């Protein structure tokens, strides 16, 4: 047994909520988006569009809440520890991340046997998670640029003209959705491939025991030590 302990401090309750809202919104947006792209069943266009516009706002408001939370809520600085600091610090490069990009890559490419030291999030994880912020904003921008009530606003017309018209904007919006699908697939895979403890914590807010780490990333005890 060599999994880190998963304590509630890693994901304070508000982030469990925002994660749930993200999940529901993205699934709803993807399904309704596929339907709007090509209505595979009769009779649901109004429902699909209604869902799409509703969850678009939910996702954006949720993103705002998550970002505010990052600056106002404290979360654990690493797994296997209850030591907390302002959440945003866990998103920026930390001491434990330094020089660890290559070891993480090697680990996932099976070129390294040992699990690299990481902070709450590893280098690649931070990059991937942070990337979802611009990805969400890009989905929103391209979506508003092809949505009837807002497509004529100067701010969106400028983008539509820059990409060569609404057809291209539509295709970019479509690809951003695929970006979310691929991100989610990799995210779900990596989060659970070595055990489902992360899922238990983020979905059920359920703690699991495991290895404990000190500030240097060294194992100092806990279950499985």
């Amino acid at each position: 047994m060599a999994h880190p302990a998963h304590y509630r401090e890693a994901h304070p309750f508000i982030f469990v909520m925002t994660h749930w809202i993200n999940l529901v919104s993205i699934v709803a947006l993807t399904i309704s988006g596929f339907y709007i792209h090509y209505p595979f069943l009769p009779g649901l266009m109004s429902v699909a569009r209604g869902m799409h516009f509703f969850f678009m706002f939910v996702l954006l408001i949720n993103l705002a809440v998550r970002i505010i939370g990052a600056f106002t809520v404290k979360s654990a600085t690493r797994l296997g520890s209850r030591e907390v600091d302002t959440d945003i610090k866990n998103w920026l490069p930390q001491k434990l991340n330094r020089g660890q990009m290559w070891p993480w890559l090697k680990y996932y490419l099976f070129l390294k046997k040992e699990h690299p030291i990481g902070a709450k999030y590893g280098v690649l994880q931070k990059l991937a998670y942070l990337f979802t912020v611009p990805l969400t904003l890009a989905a929103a921008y391209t979506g508003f640029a092809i949505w009837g009530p807002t497509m004529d606003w100067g701010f969106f017309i400028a983008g539509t003209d820059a990409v060569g018209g609404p057809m291209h904007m539509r295709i970019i919006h479509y690809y951003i959705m695929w970006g979310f699908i691929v991100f989610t697939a990799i995210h779900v895979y990596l989060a659970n491939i070595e055990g489902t403890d992360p899922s238990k914590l983020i979905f059920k807010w359920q703690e699991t025991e495991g290895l404990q780490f000190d500030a240097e990333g060294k194992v100092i005890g806990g279950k499985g030590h």
Partner: protein
Amino acid sequence: MAHEDHDAIYDLLAARGVSRRDFLKYCGSIAALLGLSQSFVPEIARAVNQAARLQPAVWLHGGACTGCTESMAQLGTPDIATVVLDILSLEFADTLSMAQGEDALAAAEAVFEREGEYILIYEGAVMKGFEGNALRVGGMTGLYELEHAAPGAAAIVAVGSCAVDGGFVMANPNPADATGVQAYLEEKGIDTPVINLPTCPMNPDWVVAVIVDVLLLGSLETGAILDKLDRFNRPKYIFSQTIHDNCPRRGHFENGNFVTEFGTEEEAKGYCLYKVGCKGPQTYTNCPIVRWNRKVSWCVESGAPCIGCGSLDWVDVGAPFLNRHRDLPLPNIGNTQPSTIAGVVAGVAAAGLAVHGIGMKATGRTSGGAPYEEMKERDRKRMKKGGGE
């Protein structure tokens, strides 16, 4: 006296079998088209009536299929629109002129000398290819003809998509290096105002509306026309709403009643054509309102999905016309649908994860997990080198 003023036009109309009531109704539709209230109807009627001075006009053809001329020729039999169009004294038109050869060109030349007085109507693409020799007129290049005619015109009306941005003539691979009138004149530093009327072909009612606006209501003289044009120099009163906004099949769209295949019951019921590639949601024209062929019908109403001919670069952007998305030209592969590309990328990602998962299982990471490193690799190397930190 006023009554006598009216006599001339009403006699003219009567000769064409049009009643005064029909004429006023038509003026009402022009007012609506121009975004004016119905209180403008008498003013439009008066303007048409008092348009004593004929406005010289020249109709030139670039790389054109003559479809726009054909569209205008719908008005060849007497009707109310021709009364308005009669205000234009068409001194020269490649297709319609009775005169031929040198005589016809001389007539055009005579108009070009009346600087600032004539309207230039340009149909077809400006073909720059082969040093301008993609099109030759009267022994000269088509480019020369345009450059010669444009500077002296009071305004240029670019009719049809080809004149607006090259239309289907500039579709990939565009061997004739076709472009639109406005872009070409900007390139040459000629600043005559250009009014763009895209679609393939253009709608004659739009020409009527523009003539009433520009000539009779004085928009060109006062410069007001410039405020009425959008960023592509299209009159806003024609090109500010999408076809989807005003589509008679919109109810079926909202209800989710779609035609999936032609020749089906859904098609017979007149369901929405969105699934068979209708570009109405992204095409800004008022086709559903003005309609075509003497207001008989228009594309979507007659059962064909909109192919987006009122948009810029409409062939490359809209084809294949029966698909929701355009094709993307991939190097060495050719035209591919965006959904195919997305499916392949996602499939590769999924396969990658599956293979990786097998690797994770084989290395025992899925069950017990790998042991954690004692120290970062970097720190370990530093320690080896010189005693470490």
